[in-house]
Structures are given as C-alpha cells and as structure tokens.
C-alpha cells in the first residue's frame, strides 16, 4: 500500500501552499497529529495542518474521517472525551498547547469555537454575547463590546430591539450567528467552526458564509464542513482527510492540503480526485 506515501504528500502539499500566500501571512496554529486515540481506538494519524493568520482553512472529507476530531484538538476540546490520547504537537503562536504545564481552559479562551448545533445559553441575547467577556473578567464597557460583536456577526439590526429576549427565541440561523457573536466578542486569536451550517437551511447557510468572508478580514478561521461547495466558496486553504480502513480500524489521515483553488481545481491524489468528483461520500 502506498498510504505512507500519500500522507507524506500532505506535507509536501502544505509547503507550496505556504510559499504562494502573501509574505505577511504567518502560521498561527501549527498542528501535527502523529497519532490520536480514543481509548484503544485510533481515530486520526499523520495529519499536519498549518492555520494561517486572517484566512479560512477548511477541513473536508467523508464522514468519520476525523475532521471534527482534528478541529477539536486545536482548542483541547477533546480533553473532555474519556480515553483521549494524543501524540504530536499543536503550537499556538509557537507554544505547544499540549505541554503538561498548559491549562486547557486558558487555551480555549484564546481559541474560540462555534459548534455544529447552534447552542445559545438559556438566557438573554445580551447575556449570551457578554458571556465570554464575563468569563475573562472584562472590566470595560460590556455593552459596547456586545454591540460590536453583534454587528460583526451581522445580527445587530435584527436583535437590537430585543436584546433582553431569550437567545433560544431566535431562529436557527440567527442562533448560529448569535453563537458566532458570542465567540468573537472576546476577539479570540483563532475561531474554530465545526460544521457551522449543517443544521441550517440554505438561506441561513448563505448568510453565515458571507459572514465568514467578512470575519476573515479580522479573524483567523478554521472550519470543518461536509459541504464541498462551501469549502470552495469560503476557504483559502483546504485539507482533505480520508479514512483508512486497511488496519481493521477507521483511522482518519490527511491526504492532501493546499490552496483551495489547487485542491478543487487540480487535486494531486487519487482519493481527493474521487471525492471531489463525488464518486463517494
């Protein structure tokens, strides 16, 4: 099997990607997963993905390939899963966040997350957005920050008159934008989005996509999506993960990583080509 060769190809694919981008681009998160286990189950192996500042990086691949797992590694959400074990490194601004001395809580404050299901708290819209500010003990003008976050999330016009209504009273798409506002209110270094549109209808999806392109000007975004067109539309760089069933398990690994234009226009690997042409899902 030439699997090893393919995964090496990922590293090669990443290198030209970095060269092609503008000189000011810098890698915010340097993620290298050698092996990742849940208990005895090997979920992901040999995956290296750099996440570049003020750009959108997308993870695509068939379901069960571990793309969400990889994303959740980046802010140590996987620590909550029992039996989680990780070999490799994730460097945020040059510092390995998996060192024993690092507090995962602190990591999550710098690397925000938006989940698959919109998950606002059962409190007012205002309090939802102010949540992160309060967590961080923000001393300044909370109202101003909340307004700013809601504006950035494109939700301000819709909710400015009902800030004290429950966040759960909004529609699904609005809830998701509220969750984005909540995540960006503290201005995190990186924003992770785990299939943020999978629970939404096409109109709401479009809005979120537009929002992502807008947010890209100020934030670094990594997104997992099962929607190829979405990745094509919003992502600057795309990584394709595939699942390897040869050793009896279902272990995901990175097949190819590069500029979105190259991944979608001129994929180098056989699996990537098949996936993008829609030959399997």
């Amino acid at each position, binding site marked *: 099997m030439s699997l090893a060769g393919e995964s090496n190809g990922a590293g090669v694919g990443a290198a030209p990607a970095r060269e092609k981008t503008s000189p000011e681009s810098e890698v915010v998160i340097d993620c290298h997963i050698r092996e990742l286990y849940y208990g005895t189950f090997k979920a992901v192996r040999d995956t290296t993905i750099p996440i570049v500042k003020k750009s959108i990086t997308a993870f695509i691949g068939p379901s069960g390939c571990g793309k969400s797992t990889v994303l959740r590694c980046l802010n140590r959400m996987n620590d909550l899963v029992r039996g989680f074990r990780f070999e490799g490194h994730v460097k945020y601004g040059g510092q390995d966040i998996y060192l024993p001395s690092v507090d995962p809580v602190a990591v999550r404050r710098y690397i925000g997350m938006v989940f698959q299901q919109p998950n606002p708290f059962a409190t007012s819209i205002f309090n939802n957005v102010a949540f992160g500010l309060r967590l961080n003990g923000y001393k300044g003008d909370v109202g*101003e920050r909340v307004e*700013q976050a809601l504006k950035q999330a494109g939700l301000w016009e819709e909710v400015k008159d009902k800030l004290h209504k429950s966040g759960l009273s909004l529609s699904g798409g609005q809830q998701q934008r509220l969750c984005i506002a909540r995540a960006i209110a503290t201005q*995190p270094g990186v924003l992770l989005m785990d299939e943020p549109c999978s629970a939404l209808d096409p109109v709401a999806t479009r809005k979120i996509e537009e929002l992502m392109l807008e947010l890209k000007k100020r934030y670094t975004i990594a997104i997992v999506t099962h929607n190829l067109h979405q990745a094509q539309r919003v992502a600057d760089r795309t990584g394709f993960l595939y699942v390897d069933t040869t050793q009896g398990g279902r272990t995901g690994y990175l097949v190819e990583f590069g500029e979105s234009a190259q991944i979608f226009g001129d994929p180098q690997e056989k699996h990537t080509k098949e996936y993008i042409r829609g030959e399997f899902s």
Partner: protein
Amino acid sequence: MSTTADILETAETTVCQPPSRWQVIADRTFRTACHTFAWVTVIGIVFIVARIILAGVPAMREYGPGFLTGTTWDPNKDAYGILPEIWGTLYSSILSLIIGTAFGVAAAIFLSEGYLGEFVFGALRVFNLHFHPFWTHLPQRLEDLLRNLIELLAAIPSVVYGLWGIFVVVPAIRPVCNWLHLKMGWFALFSTDLSGPGMLPAVLVLSIMILPTITAISRDALTSVPPKLRMAAYGLGATRWETIFAVILPTASRGVFGGVVLAFGRALGETMALAMLVGNSNRISVSLFSPANTLAALLANTFPEARPNEVAVLMYAALVLLAITLIVNILGAVILQQTSKSQQGAH
C-alpha cells in the same frame, strides 16, 4: 455591511486572558466544596444509621432476642416485648399493600393506556362535537390533571389523613364493620367489632397514602414498554386486555414490582396516620376490626413521655423498625436499578 470599516476602527484589542488567580482559586474551592458536600451526605447518612443502631445496642444487650417475641409492654414491671407491634406493622403494611397495589396499578393502566382519550372523544361524540381542533390536546391535558391529582394524594400530610380517618373513615365504616361482625363473626377477619380506631381504618388510610407511589412508578414502567411490543400484540389480533396481560404487564412487571416494594417500605415506616387510627393496643389479632399497634406508632405515642430506661428500649424498637425498612428499601432500590439497567440495555 458598510459599517464594517467603522467596526474595524474600534476596540481592536482582545479580551482574552488566561484564568485569573482569583478564578483558579474559586474553581478549586468550589470543586472541593462539591466534593466535600458529597462526602458530608454519605457520612451524614451513615452517621444517622450508625447512631440509631448504637442507641439501640444497650437495650439489645439487656433484653436480647426475647424482646422480639415478648407480648407485654409494661414500664412499671420493666417488661418489654414488641411482637404485637412487629405483627401490626407487617399486617397493616401487607393489607394496605394489597389494596394500594390493586388500585394503584389500575390507575396506572388507566393513565397509560389511553383510556382518557376514548372517554373524552366518546363523550364528545354523544354531543356530536368531535372533530374540533380545540380538543386535540384535551386527553393529554386531562391525563396530566388526573396524574397531578393522584400525586396530590401524596402531598397531603399524613397527620391530616389521620384527622380525616378519625372523623370520616371510622364513622363511615363502623356500621358496615359491625354488621359484618354480627353476621359473619365466625370468619377470622371479622372476629371482633370496630369500636373506634382499629386495623381496617388504618389500613384504608395507609393504602391511600401509598397509592401515589405505586401509580407513579407503575405508570413509568408501563409507558416505557417499547411501542413495537404493543404493536406486535395488536397486530396479532389481541384485544387491549389480552395485550395488557400478555405483553405489557409482564414487560413492565419489574418496574411495577419495584414500585410496590418502595411502597411497602413507606407503609412500614408510616407513623402518624397509624398512630392516630390503629388504636395503640398491644394485641395480636387477625381481625380487621381489632385495635392493634405498629412499631412506628409505638415510638410516636410512647417516646414523648418516656422515662430514660424506656427510651433505651424504644431505641431498640427503632432499631428493629430501621432493620425492617432498610432491608425492604434496599431491595426495592436494587430492583429499580436493575430494571432501569435492563431497559437501557434494551434500547
């Protein structure tokens, strides 16, 4: 989105910072507090049980097992025995359990098998009022109401049931009981007349008090029977009652049984209604109309005016009551736990 540029101007700085020293300390304190209180709960309960056991030990040494078989209670002669109370406790509990189970399970079936909907729609059809969207939620509403009413039975304090028993139940059943004694006095259950408080009024009130427990747990067990089993039976042409007896009750039997055991524990420990209704008489009789006594009623009636030596003996009686109820309750808890486990396994 023209405002984006303006937004970009303001407050570029991030708020993010690692947890402050204070937050870390608060986190540790709170977690320790939760852990500590969990220990407090366990140790507290162990302490309570141990305390009751230890308080009974001196009298246990002095009176030994003869205490359990003795039938007199006379502080003046220093002669104590609680066989009549043990008998009364078990007899009243078992009788009330029979009545409570019959009615409780019937109510659970009534509440879980969709009778209300039929009644409501049947009644509406009489008035030619069915097919109105307004009625859609009516059966559900009524079912909730009925369930809440049955739960209210459990909310009424037992001392109020005692009061009600003295002034309503006893006068109401007395003529019937005395007639039964007159006509069928040869039958052991009716061998005495009801002169006021007695076993039967106590049992009736007790069964009302344990009924909500049985109904609530049985209803949960009945509704958690997988619909596919029900459908299978109906699909084979079984009538509703054939389905209930052949499929639903057997499947839910463990849950129902767990509820009955819990109710049994409650009946054993119930104090006030019995203290007010059972008659506080130290005798062993199978007659339903005879006054009797139970362990809990003995404690309630004797404790407040007990002399120090008598208190020690009462502690022994409390220990016996604790032993009986603990055994029954733990059994019930284990059964319920196993039921929920096996149900989780089925899903």
